[in-house]
């Protein structure tokens, strides 16, 4: 049973590895379940990486909200005229 713990220990990643995977994780691009598990395990044990991840998440959300622009009605009409 301690075997399982040893295995987890061996699979731990350090902060540099975590930072290297951070954006892939945030962008929903970390497809490999094991990689994701290792990353989340690191976050659960490392306050710095956890806080950095949360901060980057907030920045992403804020950028997305601010970048969510509306096309004017005039532009929409102009675009439809292209088809004529």
């Amino acid at each position, binding site marked *: 049973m301690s075997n399982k713990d040893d295995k987890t220990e061996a699979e731990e990643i350090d902060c540099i590895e975590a930072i290297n995977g*951070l954006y892939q994780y945030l962008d*929903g691009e970390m497809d490999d379940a094991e990689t994701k598990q290792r990353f989340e395990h690191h976050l659960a044990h490392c306050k710095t990486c956890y806080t950095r991840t949360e901060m980057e998440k907030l920045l992403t959300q804020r*950028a997305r909200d601010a970048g969510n622009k509306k096309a004017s009605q005039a*532009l929409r009409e*102009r*675009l439809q005229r292209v*088809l004529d």
Partner: protein
Amino acid sequence: MADEETKSWFSERIDEYADPLYGYSFQLTRNRTDAEDLVADAVSKAWSGVESLKDRRKFRSWIFRILHNCYVSNYRKKSVRPVEVSQNVAFDEITDDLTNFLTEQSDEFLAWWGTPEREFANKVLGEDILEAIEGLPDEFKGAVVLVTVEGLSYNEAAEVLEISSGTVHSRMKRGRMLLQKALWIHATEAGLITETPPKEMHNEQ
């Protein structure tokens, strides 16, 4: 000439994507008139080449690519902003690791970067982030805008930028790090960061 079915399908897609196309365009040009002209040019190009879109499910990356290429060939030149010299290396050949980037940075930036404060994100306005993204070198700007602001997947962004999705990933890493640095400079100048953590004597976390 495209048939009626194609025409009504295209018309609906343009209506559906008008906002994100304008959003991407605005982020590239940072100017309403240019942004609207760019979208109109791109839509016009897309419509005249609609037969080249073989797989309609790829409409989004296809039309973003057309818009991106229009920007690169017709709009970027107009920019008065001096071309930013980032780093004199071919980025895609850089080792896929941030260690190199970190070793090049100042102690002040690293001290701040090493002690992240979630509250910092609350102090920075969305527009400040967009402005900082706007100032990124073009290679990174495209990927960061498409993925971070527009929410495209790495694969879609890769299709738009005509690069591999692995390259999108490395550009995201480096681009977002450069963004952090730009925000740090902005925040320092705006007085949002009042004190740099002491770094000489204490090296513990």
